[in-house]
């Protein structure tokens, strides 16, 4: 399966037109993402995302009615 096939599957999944088998495949693929232990886990050493939290709350207040 190549990237374009996968993208098509994801689109069908998002549009709600995927068959049961296709749904299973997309969800299985999604769950498998990030399961491998590798250098990606260095995020563990990044301190809490205080800046991001403040940014989100600030951005929300911009939408206030």
């Amino acid at each position, binding site marked *: *399966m*190549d990237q374009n096939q996968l993208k098509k599957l*994801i689109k069908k999944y998002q549009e709600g037109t995927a068959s049961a088998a296709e749904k299973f495949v997309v969800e*299985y693929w999604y769950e498998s993402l*990030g399961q491998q232990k590798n250098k990606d886990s260095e995020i563990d050493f990044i301190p809490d*995302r205080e800046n*991001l939290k403040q940014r*989100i709350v600030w951005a*929300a207040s911009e*939408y206030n009615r």
Partner: protein
Amino acid sequence: MKPKLLIKDISDFEMLVNTHTDKLTQTAFLKIGNLQDAEDLVQDLFINLWIKRDSIVVHGPVYNYLYVSLRNKIMNYFAKAKLRQDVKNKLAANLEVVDLSLVNLLIEKDLNTLFSEILSELPDHMQKIFKLRNEDFTLKEIAVALGLAEQTVKGYSAEMHRRIKAMLIERHPEFARSLTVMLSFLLIK
């Protein structure tokens, strides 16, 4: 848990953000492999929640709701036309898993039925060979059991593989390549 409005006011929202941002960002980062994009997705997710807060009712644990929302965000992200090279690499690295998942699917679910359907359309001698191969008999043993030359059994066996593959692909053209992978698990021993 009773259904309840997720966010009534800005302090509910702040609490939600403070409680879940770290975990969601970590999940997004692990899935897409790019921290900046992961943060953007999480921010998007929360802002959407805030905008639609009057209509968001949660039936179960809040984290499950957020996890599914994040999954939708990430799926959309992957479905987008242009992806950066690092994200593409991430996507490519997981494609093998998709094929494996198909193998599991085909073995466990509806295709089990399909498979027996296909088998029943094969000539008797091929069905016998398939059954014996599945019981781990060698071609030589099968030849003896059926009173045929080993070369003949080999020929039948190759023809049987060809037919099964053609019939499977005819029924499921969308998985043509993956079916080939599956057959290598099921048939080549």
